């Protein structure tokens, strides 16, 4: 069973629908025992980083997540969930979980697209990934595949954690982490077949490594 972290800043039901479609058992939960007994945790997030972090602090779920990661539980952060794994976000001046070294940055409107026009913020729509390092959650995903993004801030982790980048005005990190701990700025649950493949790959990794307790 995969656990989808339940807190007041997520798109949990979209993730659940995608996993249901894939036939992957999952629970939307904030129960520490269920989170601990899951094969892996998906950590979604929408809205502002500050509000999401406040929720995680208020509920103690932030500390719980960090502990699970330390113990080797596979984790997949999505969108704001991906940003909050870093140390800091300037959005609402937020001190984040610090599971992965780095911070978030905001898209500068001074950046221009390939036609020389100012970029629109948020970055909303479909865009490609350039793989910077081997990353098994992208196994079987075509190099030209695109993913659905919607965000105004982007992660900037320490260079050794950058797994894939995307270009929008400038090149930014769109997938970071290490084996067993992944964070995606895009929404795999809304990215059609390639996104479903990524979720399926995460589940397969969880099954293989078997961190259920």
């Amino acid at each position, binding site marked *: 069973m995969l656990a989808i972290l339940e807190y007041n800043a997520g798109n949990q*039901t*979209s993730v659940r*629908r*995608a996993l*249901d*479609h894939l036939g992957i058992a999952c629970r939307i939960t904030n129960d520490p025992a269920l989170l601990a007994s899951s094969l892996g945790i998906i950590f979604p997030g*929408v*809205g*502002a980083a500050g509000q999401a972090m406040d929720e995680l602090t208020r509920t103690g779920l932030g500390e719980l997540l960090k502990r699970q990661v330390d113990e080797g539980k596979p984790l997949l952060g999505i969108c704001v969930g991906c940003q909050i794994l870093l140390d800091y976000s300037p959005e609402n001046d937020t001190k984040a979980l610090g599971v992965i070294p780095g911070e978030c940055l905001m898209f500068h*409107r001074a950046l221009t*697209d*390939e036609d020389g*026009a*100012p970029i*629109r*913020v*948020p*970055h*909303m*729509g*479909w*865009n*490609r990934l350039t793989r910077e390092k081997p990353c098994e959650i992208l196994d079987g995903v*075509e190099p*030209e*595949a*695109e993913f*659905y993004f*919607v*965000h105004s801030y982007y992660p900037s982790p320490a260079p050794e954690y950058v797994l894939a980048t995307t*270009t*929008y005005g400038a090149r930014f990190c769109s997938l970071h982490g290490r084996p067993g701990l992944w964070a995606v700025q895009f929404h795999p*649950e*809304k*990215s*059609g*077949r*390639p*996104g*479903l493949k990524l979720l399926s790959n995460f589940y397969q990794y969880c099954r293989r490594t078997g961190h259920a307790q």
Partner: protein
Amino acid sequence: MLSKRVIPCLDVRDGKLTKGVKFKGNIDIGDPVETARIYYEEGADEIVFYDITASAEGRGIMLDVVDKVASKIFIPFSVGGGIATVEDMRAVLLAGAEKISVNSAAVKNPDIVSQGAAAFGSQCVVVGMDVKSVAVSDAVPSGYEIVIHGGRKFTGLDALDWAKTIEALGAGEICLNSIDADGTKEGYELTLTRLISDNVGIPVIASGGAGSPAHMARALTEGKASAALIASIVHYGQYTIPQIKKYLSGEGVKVREVW
């Protein structure tokens, strides 16, 4: 590099498509859920549902449709039509839509835009603008006026001013519909599309007038739109979404080609 989006729009009344959609083999499908699934499989980048139901009972049926669509398609989709309060928005988003779209409700009560953005994030809030070309005046300096009630009622709002206002209120996207071009199949209103796109920093979806992929290419290049809304050119089997994308790609418009 961000792809330009191709977005089919489906009109729904009491949980059924107002006009059946003809796919290959002339199969006429009246079910919005199955139709959305086929467009998803064909490579639509997003889907827009416009609910023209009048009754409260019909609205409940629509929420059921949204829930079923969300379980079958894994791309963003939005729902518009009759959404007037934050509670209406919440119900549709909880049922599984990615975005909600407000149109005349925003004209009557602009606060709905900021309330929706504060509650759910700007990325959820699309503002639909229905626009008619009018004589330039002090009240409407751009020569484009916002209309509501399907174009029957003039509001006195200048379209350019209104676009800037809703952006400031927190709209995440504008769906810009030219009532003059709508239904003509003679192409999008490019001057209007360009005017709005050049003057806001949020994405603009061009709507109204699509009769061919060439029209879409012009809206996405000259008109600087981020996305093109289409209806009859795909609903009646004239073009498929892969054909449209192949054409756009050939014209140098970046589109999503692998799905």
